[in-house]
Every structure is written in C-alpha cells, then in structure tokens.
C-alpha cells in the first residue's frame, strides 16, 4: 500500500499472532512478547553524552504531572540486593540521578563511593518511600560493605533523614492509577484502515498495554495481525464518527444502520473516551477556512521521514480534511487520501520547510529546484492561508540528542530506542538508534506515540533495542 518502498525496522523475531476469531473476541493471551525486550543498560545510562527527555515533557505519560518533584537528593527505601546481609534486607538510598523513569541510587553511608550504585525503575515495587519498612515491621539493615562504619546506625539515619525529601506514602497507588486506560478489551472503535488509509474500519480492542490498544479489524482475514495505537491517537474515533464527519468507512450493513439510528450498544466506545482535539482560541474567529484544492505541506502519513507538498482533496464536517501527498503516483482511486484535522500539528503552510531548513519533498515529476510560486502558478492553485494553521510552539523541553522510547508509526506494534535528532518548533525528528536516517520520523512533541526512557519496562511493553547493523534501503 506504500507509494515508496519504505523498509521498516523489524524485531529479530516476530511472535506468532493469535488467529482472529470471526466475531473479534479478545485473544486468549497477550500479543506482547517480552522475551528479548531491550533494557537500558548502565553503559547507556552512564554515558557522558546520555540525556533522557524528562518525564514531565510527555503530557500523556504516567506521573508526568508530578515528575518535576522527583529529583536528586530524594531518599527512598530499597532492597539491598547483593549488598544485603540477609536476602530481603532493605536500606535507605539517595537518588543521585534521574533518567526518564529510571533513577540511580546510592545507599546511605557510601558517601562519595559510587561502586555500589544501582539503577532502578522509580515507579517499580522495589522502591518505597522512607518509612515503608517500618509499616511492614521490617528493620532497616545497612549493606555489608559499610556495616562496620558505625556502631549506632540509628543516630546516623536520624541525622541523614531529618529534613530530607522522600516519596509520598501513596506513591505506588498514584503510579497504578496513572497507568489505567480509559479503554477495555471488547470495546468497538472506528480506526484508520492500515491497508487503505483513506478509509476507516470498525475494530475491537483486544488488549490494552500501557494505554496502547491492540485492535482487530472487523472482517479481517485470520492472518491479519491487527493494529496498535495509543488511546489518545488521532486515528481512532468513537462508533458513528465516520458518519458524523462524512468520512469513508467500510462496515457491515447492520453497523451502518446502527449509526443511522444512533442505538449503540455497551461495547461501542462512547465519545467521552477519546482524546479531545485541541482547538486554538483563534480558530473559530477566523473567517477563512480550508477549501478543496488548497496546497500545503504535510507529513507523509506513509513515510514519516518526509514532509511533502500536499493538496486538500475534500473538506469534511467538524474541520476534518482529506489530504493527498502530491508526490504519490496518481491512481485516481482516492485510496491514498489521509484525514488530518485542521488543527493537526502535522500540516503546515506553504513555505514552512524552507523557513525551518527542512527538505521538502516536491510533487511527483517536479524537476529542478522546487518553487512554491511557480508550482501554484502552474497548477493554478492557491496555498492554504498560514492563519489557518495551528502553530503554537510552547516551551516543551525536548532537546536534540535526548533519548526516548518511540513507536515506529510504520509498524506501531514496535516501540523502539530512539533519540531526538532535530527540534523545529514543536516538531521533533526522532531517530531510531542504529537505523539509517531514512527511518527517521517527524513527530509532534505532543504525540502520544513517544515515551520517556523506562516507559516500556514500567508498562510491560516490549522495547526494541538499537540495531547494530542498519540495512541499506
């Protein structure tokens, strides 16, 4: 279905997919295979150039709203591991560094000695607020290496802990709460057809992992492995959405009748479960609007490393637009149109790429230096007025070189080790470690498909490691 042959990063082994049942019942087992999942190693985390995007930069990420309070100097209680005098001994440790959801801890009493420092997942059950052990009736026991240093550890701890910071007692319940999805298996949604992006299909949620939904298309052949997307993704909508906005949808006759009558059943996901499309304050005051034939620049939905010259092919209700990339081969079937909302951060006014020093993919057959002026003249088209675009650029905190975990949107089942390669306003170019730059993806900073370091571990989602030998395209 791709106009260009885009080879996508693949995991070394692909787990067998469960066979889709005709009535789209949830599969009996998880489709996420954690065997061989990548772990951020100490060599990664302690590299002098390593810097993770802070959790607070990802508004959709669990604990994002309070993560700024997690900082070096904070005290926690943690199992001593190999340093334990007994198998399950706990001791107090200080957070010395934070990278995403991961924290480097130094046991109290080691002072400047970093030899026994450990990296932990701060949101995991192995880390507790100071005071937790007492509530469990467990005494704190110093690690074996430093046990000889003090005769009275009580006095030492009193001195070290008084006035220090720790986690709140309900930290773990907050973590659990912030990971809960609004969706559940069995709910029906409308989602972009991965095999024909111009149309929607009805699908059922079969699995939810870390707020990422596994969907099975209704009527899909048994060997179809479904589709993954985040619950806040702009490509999923409530039952009845396509009919409401005038988008093409492939569904059974009974489904269409249900949408006409508005008699939904309890398994049809209601609108309140879906992310609200942000409408900028000046959006309704503008007298102008997008109209058919207008030219613009857009992220290619089939090759996210490219920003291309594009055309508004159709204006739907509720400010949704059908966009076509002008470099696609013409087949007159409308199968490569893609729906973007007028406020989408993935569409840009003509001249955006030039202004931001980004290579613009010209229209098909265009030779030589691309000129918007000449192209508009040649096609007798108009450029969509810049005032129609949503270009708010907040101070988002993403910086070039920062590490993160990112879904590969060409195969959104995969979440991979990645880096921020470029920052252009609110637009990020994400690079997958070890892969050639052809695989890079332009992603809005607010996208729910990018996550902090440690998100996969925390969510029980498989993380694809860096590829050591990237294949040539």
């Amino acid at each position, binding site marked *: 279905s791709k106009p260009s042959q885009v080879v996508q990063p693949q995991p070394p082994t692909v787990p067998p997919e469960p066979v889709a049942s005709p009535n789209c019942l949830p599969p009996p087992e998880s489709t996420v295979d954690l065997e061989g999942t990548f772990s951020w190693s100490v060599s990664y985390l302690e590299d002098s150039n390593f810097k993770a995007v802070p959790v607070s930069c990802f508004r959709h990420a669990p604990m994002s709203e309070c993560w700024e*309070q997690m900082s070096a100097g904070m005290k926690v209680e943690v199992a001593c591991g190999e340093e334990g005098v007994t198998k399950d001994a706990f001791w107090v440790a200080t957070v010395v560094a934070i990278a995403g959801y991961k924290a480097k801890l130094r046991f109290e009493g080691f002072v400047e000695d970093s030899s026994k420092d450990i990296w932990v997942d701060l949101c995991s059950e192995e880390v507790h607020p*100071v*005071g937790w*052990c007492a*509530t469990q009736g467990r005494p704190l*026991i110093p690690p074996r290496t430093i046990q000889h240093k003090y005769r009275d550890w*009580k006095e030492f701890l009193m001195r070290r802990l008084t*006035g220090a910071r720790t986690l*709140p007692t309900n930290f773990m319940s*907050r973590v659990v709460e912030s990971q809960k999805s609004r969706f559940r298996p069995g709910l029906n949604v409308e989602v972009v057809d991965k095999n024909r992006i111009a149309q929607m299909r009805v699908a059922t949620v079969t699995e939810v992992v870390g707020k990422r939904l596994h969907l099975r298309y209704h009527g899909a052949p048994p060997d179809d492995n479904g589709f993954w997307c985040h619950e806040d993704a702009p490509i999923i909508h409530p039952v009845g959405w396509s009919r409401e906005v005038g988008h093409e949808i492939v569904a059974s006759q009974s489904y269409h009748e249900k949408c006409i009558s508005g008699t939904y059943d309890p398994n049809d996901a209601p609108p309140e479960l879906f992310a609200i499309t942000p409408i900028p304050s000046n959006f309704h005051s503008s007298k102008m609007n997008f109209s058919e034939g207008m030219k613009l620049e857009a992220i290619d939905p089939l090759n996210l490393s490219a920003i291309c010259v594009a055309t508004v092919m159709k204006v739907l209700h509720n400010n949704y637009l059908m966009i076509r990339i002008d470099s696609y081969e013409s087949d007159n079937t409308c199968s490569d149109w893609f729906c973007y909302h007028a406020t989408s951060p993935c569409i840009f006014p003509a001249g955006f790429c030039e202004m931001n020093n980004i290579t613009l993919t010209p229209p098909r057959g265009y030779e030589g230096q691309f000129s918007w002026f000449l192209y508009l003249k040649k096609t007798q088209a108009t450029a969509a007025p810049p005032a129609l675009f949503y270009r708010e650029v907040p101070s988002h905190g993403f910086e070039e070189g920062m590490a993160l975990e990112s879904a590969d949107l060409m195969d959104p089942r995969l979440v991979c080790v990645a880096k921020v390669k470029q920052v252009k306003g609110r637009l990020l170019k994400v690079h997958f470690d070890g892969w050639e730059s052809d695989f890079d993806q332009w992603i809005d900073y607010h996208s729910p498909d990018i996550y902090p370091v440690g998100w996969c571990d925390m969510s029980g989602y498989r993380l694809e490691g860096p590829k050591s030998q990237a294949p040539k395209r």
Partner: protein
Amino acid sequence: SIASVGQKWEQKQVQIKTLEGEFSVTMWSSGVDE
C-alpha cells in the same frame, strides 16, 4: 534547600525501624498525595 522545592512539599513525621530501635524523623514529602 527546601525553599527551592516549592509549595507542593509538605512536612511529615516518618517512622523508622532499625536493629537498634525505632524512632521518628521529620521529612518532606512531595504533594503527590493531593
């Protein structure tokens, strides 16, 4: 310093148990409780 931590921190008494005995200390806890 505590002042730089901001308003979302609150003081609380934390019970600690060691092999030498129990005691309590005053610590700061982030306002995640809220």
